[in-house]
């Protein structure tokens, strides 16, 4: 093989990566200000209004977090503690 075909390959991977990422960011935009249900580790379920995410998607900023211990007006959820989350359109 040649370095030329490698460059084409890298470019194609980068294009696919961009498309996948753009779609993911659109899903975050769609989620803003919606009620989101979070399934956390240890079978904990919480519900909150989604605000924003940091650029690395390590943390979610949420409002009115409803937990088994009460309601938190403002909170940060660590993404590593979340198994999945869902919202209705």
């Amino acid at each position, binding site marked *: 093989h040649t370095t030329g075909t490698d460059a084409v390959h890298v470019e194609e991977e980068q294009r696919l990566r961009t498309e*996948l990422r753009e779609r*993911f960011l659109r*899903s975050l935009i769609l989620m803003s200000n919606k009620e989101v249900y979070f399934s956390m*580790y240890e079978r904990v379920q919480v519900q909150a209004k989604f605000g924003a995410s940091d650029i690395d998607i390590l943390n979610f900023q949420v409002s009115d977090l409803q937990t088994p211990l009460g309601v938190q007006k403002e909170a940060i959820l660590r993404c590593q503690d*979340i*198994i999945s*989350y869902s919202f*209705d359109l």
Partner: protein
Amino acid sequence: MQDWCKKRPHEWHKYINQEVRVTAHDKNEYQGWVFTVDPVSGSVVLVTLHGQQSTSVRVVMGHAVRDVEVLKEGDEEIAQQLNALFMPAGSQVLTN
């Protein structure tokens, strides 16, 4: 499938518009149409279409994904339905 997060973009890209069953941590299973896989975290964005009435989105975090099984190939109609949900309203084609 412990190395789900280490897959290459072209491998994740093949799942777009496919109906899949994702098995996650603690044997949690989720079914839906794949809108995308975040190439940074490996998180899978699934859409469940319940007819005209309701549509829901479920995102399974990449670190919790154990297995992804393809159930059905999506067609152009599914692709258009998914795109219409996520793309900005201004870019949608409106008909009378």
